């Protein structure tokens, strides 16, 4: 068993006959184990006209199984000091947990039981629906969430799987009944789209054996191709304003649609994002908006590429009186990087940062598990952590310049401003 992963990860992988995959990375750094069981079944799979089904399924799925009551599941988790998190993204439903090594067998069995045989008791649905509606109400009062969700809608349109609300709306959550959850589970939560990653103080062979015992008899439909419709190509700048009286700060979300994760230009876009809004306190954006002009506590960009053409998003939170100046600053930085591309120094710095940060990003069991899930999801290979430095080194300044020229044009940006003051020239929502 390895206690150090200085030379890189050494995961062991096995595929079951039903299509599910198990990946184990041994690590004895702490006497703990992280389990991450991910199904390729997120809000992308929501039925048309009923967003929120995946989200609500995740909220209820761990509240009782056909063999165990909700209380019994709760007791099994709590007595071991374990919090089971079930979350959804656009393409995934993730069951994750960290437990002591001594509790691993029991917790693994419980997670599989919860994922395979949920009972979706009506009483639990009622409670979790009320919690989810409360969470939506909280988001309605949160300028950052409002700006972010409105930007997705502006970039993709309200009906696109990346544009519609992943957590549903109050109206759709009220319409989602137990049958909808049962159907979602039957259709989408199946072995062919499951990857179980285990990282920690375990033995790989024994763990794979145990996962096989727990999953082997589970049958389901085979994996289907995932086709994400391309977003409409923007011809003009789109601006939306969300008035939120009483708020002290205005949140700005500004972005573009870009490329898919599997696009060969992915690492060029990653470097571009780092230079624009990540390096240091937040790249060129934070240098301008925070450091030189003192206008914001945060200004950064983010780029999380997915199965479909994914957004590159700029975020800033500013005093309402500085909104115009901040948008000008974002436009300036975006335009400049789009027209001129990065400097050689910026390329070297960001590349060194991204390569050097790999060991830090793979330090904890949880972060390794999430990384290995990405490797599986995008078929990157078990040696991806060792190949990644070379992939980053291979990116040329011309490739980053081309990525910048392709996407960074303020005239094609989508922009949302959520805050207390009206702004002239924006569509109000």
């Amino acid at each position: 068993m390895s206690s150090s992963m200085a030379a890189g990860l050494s995961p062991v992988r096995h595929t079951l006959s039903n299509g599910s995959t198990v990946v184990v990375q041994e690590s004895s750094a702490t006497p703990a184990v992280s389990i991450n069981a991910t199904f390729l079944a997120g809000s992308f799979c929501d039925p048309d006209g009923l967003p929120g089904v995946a989200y609500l399924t995740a909220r209820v799925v761990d509240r009782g199984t056909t063999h165990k009551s909700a209380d019994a599941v709760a007791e099994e988790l709590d007595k071991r000091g374990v919090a089971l998190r079930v979350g959804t993204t656009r393409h995934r439903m993730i069951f994750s947990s960290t437990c002591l090594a001594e509790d691993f067998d029991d917790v693994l069995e419980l997670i599989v039981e919860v994922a395979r045989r949920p009972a979706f008791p009506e009483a639990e649905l009622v409670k979790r629906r009320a919690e989810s509606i409360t969470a939506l109400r909280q988001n309605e009062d949160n300028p950052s969430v409002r700006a972010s969700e409105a930007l997705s809608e502006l970039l993709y349109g309200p009906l696109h799987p990346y544009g519609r609300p992943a957590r549903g709306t109050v109206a759709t959550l009220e319409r989602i009944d137990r049958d909808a959850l049962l159907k979602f589970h039957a259709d989408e939560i199946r072995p062919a789209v499951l990857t179980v990653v285990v990282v920690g103080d375990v033995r790989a062979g024994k763990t794979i054996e145990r996962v096989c015992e727990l999953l082997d008899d589970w049958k389901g439909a085979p994996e289907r191709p995932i086709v994400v419709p391309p977003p409409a190509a923007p011809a003009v700048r789109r601006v939306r304003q969300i008035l939120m009286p009483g708020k002290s700060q205005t949140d700005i979300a500004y972005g573009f649609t870009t490329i898919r994760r599997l696009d060969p230009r992915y690492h060029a876009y990653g470097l571009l994002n780092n230079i624009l809004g990540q390096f240091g306190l937040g790249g060129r954006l934070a240098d301008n908006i925070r450091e030189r002009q003192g206008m914001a506590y945060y200004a950064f960009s983010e780029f999380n590429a997915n199965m479909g053409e994914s957004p590159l998003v700029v975020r800033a939170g500013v005093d309402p009186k500085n909104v115009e100046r901040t948008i000008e600053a974002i436009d300036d930085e975006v335009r400049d990087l789009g027209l001129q591309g990065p400097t050689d120094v910026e390329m070297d710095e960001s590349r060194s940062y991204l390569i050097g940060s790999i060991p830090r990003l793979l330090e904890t069991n949880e972060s390794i598990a999430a990384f290995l899930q990405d490797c599986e999801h995008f078929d990157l290979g078990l040696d991806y952590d060792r190949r990644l430095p070379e992939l980053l080194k291979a990116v040329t300044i011309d490739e980053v310049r081309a990525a910048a020229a392709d996407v960074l044009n303020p005239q094609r940006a989508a922009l949302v401003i959520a805050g207390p003051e009206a702004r002239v020239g924006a569509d109000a929502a």
Partner: protein
Amino acid sequence: MDSMHLPATTSVESRTLRDYLANGLQVVVREVHTAPLVSVWCWYRVGSGDEAPGLTGVSHWVEHMNFKGTINIPREQMKGIVERFGGMWNGYTWIDQTTYLETAGRAALDQMLFIEAERMAYGLYEPPECESERTVIISELQGGDNDPDQLLDTEVTATAFRAHPYGHPTIGWLEDLRSMTRDDLYDYYRRFYIPNNATLVVVGDVDATDVMKRVEKHFASIPEGPAPERMCAIEPEQLGERRVVIEREGTTGYVKVVFRAPAATEPDFFPLLVLDAVLTGAKGVNLWSSFRGLPPQRRARLYTALVERGLASVVSGAILPTVQPYLYTLSFTAIDGVSLAAVETAAFDEIERVRSAGVEPSEVERARHQLRARLVFDNDSVTNIAHQLGYFETVAGPRFLSSIQRQIDAVTAEQIWDVARRRLTSANRTVGWFRPAGRS
């Protein structure tokens, strides 16, 4: 290296070396060879609990200024020193402490020590930089004010304290942030940022003896200063329940109940920590990482009494280790359509049940196991291990961290009942409501 206060000690099991430089800088080094990384933290015994009226927020603002350039690191060169090694850096200020950290590949150790030495002694505090940072911090404050739960927390904490500076928010009051001067900041910096008021912690893939030599090289020339006097205010006894109600635009109601709580080193601290695990689930004692996700709480008393009964969507509790007595905080988010009075009544009913009948031995055992697990989970990286070493050196002294497990294990159901009866009284609490305008 001279030993000023304590002899240098090395623990073979944990490979931890502790020593003091001649100028009084305390140094703690732990070898952890699980990844090719090193984490450096520099802790100062100063926080918002040291601030006088009119200067609230000065500790946090000084923290911000210490990222703005030094004599030997011009501001524009601060960025990139650690990043070139893939590293991250940050800092935070709270009521008892201000701390700075870098975590990066082990090749960056000298650069990290250099940054911390510069930060300790050679900050520039250029007037235009101070002005620029004033608006950044006001923006940070306004961002917090956008969150009704945080707004309520500020009001409740201020209401719970009358004399002690723990009552004001660490970020400061807006008017103080508008009026403070560059000299206020610089004077404060010079008073507290001296080696004999600091603890340097290095954890990672290093040789401890080699680290000590490098620390000596970077820090030995920094002169010690007069030991700064820390603010010492005694909060008067609370004679009755206090209340605060905020009514303003919003969509969701929040209830917050705080009780005056013991300092980390008081005998009541661990019984209250275990009681909190019984009431809301164990969060552990790592301020840096304990709040990464929800605690195991589905069988916790207040969760079953409020969330499972459809009154609240979120229940949380927090008892944090502090130098002087602070607060035990319970927070509730009301389910849409449920009155704040109903949430409060259900919470108080459950607390009264604990006060009148105590807790079951099985609940204590579950809470202890949860806390044991959290102690393991919260030490899963060199950054987290270094945080815990520095935090407890700063707020509770050198032997506290290693005693935590033993102290948790020693807590009995009787002690929990006793602390509940004495501490969770109506006269010892402050209650806050955030009521969205126009709702009941």
